[in-house]
């Protein structure tokens, strides 16, 4: 749960609407009006500040193998099924007005993913939650819904992030942990990044702020452990966390098979 995760590093994780909304950004009322859809109800309602919501959800189970695009489509369908009065964009192909947090790589779980949506009028966040929760795609359970100010900052893809590699019982071995230290501890470490415009070698210096090995909590997790990694903001020559994790896992060699899940546990507030 994001609530629990954020409690561990409460000052860093952007999970509170009030905090997030303090910064001023785009999305003036005029924009909103222009984007109002063809529904007559939508046209007559003057959008109030309460009509923007931030939906927190997990991405888990087999849903982690859905691409970012397919996940967005599944969430938009959930919004439609919920019967909530959503705003739509204008143009030849109108769509519900929504914005999504940074893309999760295919195969990565997410403990606190976000989607912002705009409704045509003030509705209590608890009602949005009630309507949306039973419609969420399988493997993407809803965590919570917050009311956001229209000016709240969107979560940008270059934000710092925290990831977890979850190991199966009995793993990782001492040797594997040593490999992790070698991988992250080498200031000269470069990784090979494949992109549409060719292959590039990029240094990961400064990309990983900290890493630690942690025993997982109770329940089904008893006897298992995780590697927790804090990544700095990507961009400006710093590769993205998913690229670094892919390289790390490659580096682990056969030990890679003991990793049962890669999970983004938090998208951190910009410093």
């Amino acid at each position, binding site marked *: 749960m994001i609530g629990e995760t954020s409690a561990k590093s409460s000052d860093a994780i952007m999970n509170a609407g009030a905090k997030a909304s303090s910064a001023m950004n785009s999305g003036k009322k005029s924009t909103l009006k222009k984007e109002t*859809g063809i529904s007559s109800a939508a046209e007559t309602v003057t959008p109030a500040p309460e009509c923007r919501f931030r939906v927190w959800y997990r991405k888990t189970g*087999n849903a982690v*193998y859905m*691409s970012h695009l*397919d996940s967005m489509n599944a969430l938009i369908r959930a919004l439609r099924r919920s019967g909530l009065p959503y705003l739509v964009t204008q143009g030849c192909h109108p769509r519900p007005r929504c914005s999504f947090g940074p893309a999760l790589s*295919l*195969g990565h779980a997410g403990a606190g993913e976000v989607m912002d949506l705009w409704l045509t009028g003030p509705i209590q966040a608890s009602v949005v939650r009630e309507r949306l929760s039973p419609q969420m795609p*399988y493997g993407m359970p809803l965590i919570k819904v917050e009311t956001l100010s229209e000016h709240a900052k969107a979560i940008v893809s270059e934000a710092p992030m925290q990831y977890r590699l979850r190991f199966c019982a009995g793993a990782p071995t001492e040797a594997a942990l040593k490999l992790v230290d070698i991988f992250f501890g080498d200031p000269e470490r470069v990784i090979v990044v494949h992109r549409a415009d060719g292959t590039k070698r990029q240094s990961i210096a400064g990309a990983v702020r900290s890493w630690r090995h942690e025993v997982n909590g109770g329940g089904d*997790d008893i006897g298992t452990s995780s590697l927790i990694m804090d990544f700095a903001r990507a961009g400006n020559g710093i590769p993205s966390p998913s690229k670094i994790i892919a390289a790390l896992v490659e580096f682990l060699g056969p030990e890679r098979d003991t990793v049962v*899940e890669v999970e983004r546990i938090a998208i951190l507030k910009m410093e």
Partner: protein
Amino acid sequence: MIISPENTRDRADLRGVPGLTHWDLISVEKPARYLGGEWNQAAPKPGANISVCLAFPDLYELGMSNIALKILYELLDADPRIAVERVFSPWGDFEEILRRKGIPLYGLESKRPLHAFDVLGITLPYEMTFTNVLRMLELGGIPLLGNERSSGPLIIAGGPSAANPLPVADFFDAILIGDGEEALPELCERVISWKAKGGERRVRGRLELLEEITTIEGFWVPQFPKPVRRRVFKGFASSAPPLKMIIPNVETIHNRVPLEIFRGCMQGCRFCNAGYFYRPRRDRTPRALIECAATLMRNTGNESVGLLSLSTSDYGCLDELVTGVVSNRVFPDQNITVPSLRMNEATLQLLKRGDQVKKSGLTFAPEAGSQRLRDVIGKKITEDDILRVIEATRESCYQTVKLYFMIGLPFETNSDVDAIAELVGKIDGTARRMKLRKDLSISLSPFVPKPFTPFQWAEQLPAEELLARRVRVTNALKRTRAKVSWREEFLCGLEAVLARGDERVGKLILAAHRKGCRFDGWGEQFRRKAWEESLKETGLTISEFARERSLEEKLPWDFIDFRTPRAFLEAEYRRAIETARGVVE
């Protein structure tokens, strides 16, 4: 086991498929194809009497758009005694993992291997999927030949490419000719009571069941061959269409939920197997359809409804239906798509509508370039109709217009071939004159004679001749702005073999399968050499199946009562001959 969000901590069974790891899944393209768990997937039925897996022998993205699969899935799921699942052909990358790890191909819902089902029902949508069928059986741990199976699931087929069941007879226990809505539940009924009576445990149990299936109208059982009559679902018009469709977790070719507005088409184009396979025409009422469209959108959250049929502009109440769906609005961003348009008045009206009819692309099938040849094949459109529709696109925001033509139609002459480019030139000219900025795309396909059509006796020209005619068209089309694509001639020759073949063709399919053929309809996957070798090995030639048949000749599939008498097809063929000779119809 289906993974629910609550039990994701159950890491050992995370993917639900023993042996399949996270790293396997992320190494393949679009792993969500192989995992199920979509919205509206059938809930598990632990107490079900039988399990049925519906198979589509092509990729998930294609199969999930197939309406027959949706209909049968929902129908069987409504029966508490039947647990229904789906399976699609795995792409090469995933197949390699299954083979390497010895994981049998499985049903997406429960992940149980194919060999553990009671019934495996395979849709045959087009002939070039036959090698995929064999591959699915093999991967599912099922012996390929019907007479080698003494236990395990009953393997049945259906769909338009099963109309002539002989080429695939070796591989199936029973083949359905015609509509499945009643026939498949009847078959399940027999399997349930056979199982209850201990049929599985009796030595001759399987044969008893097969013999029993011959008594269900529409089913042909290769091990007990008897005359068979095509099954028609007479209650179609008043039946409910599938309304709780599964929403695929991978983007499919059509992002729309299909609503079948009528079945059958009485236009009577002489080459068209669908036209004869789905007869008679049965219409749903616009009132019922308007309600269904709204329910469908609410149940799926999908904003686009496709009004589906073989020829949607022939639906008498199309305007009423479109108006009804538009005014009975469910979502502010909803739209309607209308595929399968003919170039007629109804289409013109539709193009003029400014409202929620989605304007992505328009597709028409004039099939032949000259009026003479269109008359011969029974395609009832004129050049004037075509140009009027093109003009009418001016008022719409349709961006592309796609036209389908066939090459090598019976009685085609060089001037008919040239007429294709001439017609496209006129269309292009009209568009230029009206300053229409539309993309024009032309698709050329060699003619394939199909059983149970008036052209079942006609010849398919040799590949070299078809190629020469195609080149003639593509060269002439260089003078227009049209983008041209075509189907390969050799492939269509094979299609003729697989469509008009007899029992001997099973060996050919098996040989091609053994040589690694699969996804034959997928351009770059097609292995011409392997097919050529297979033909040689089995001593078959394309030409013996492509040749013209005389009207006196007995045809291999004559034992099937297709409900259109052979005499009618003969008369239609004669009329085509007379038209070609210039005798007015």
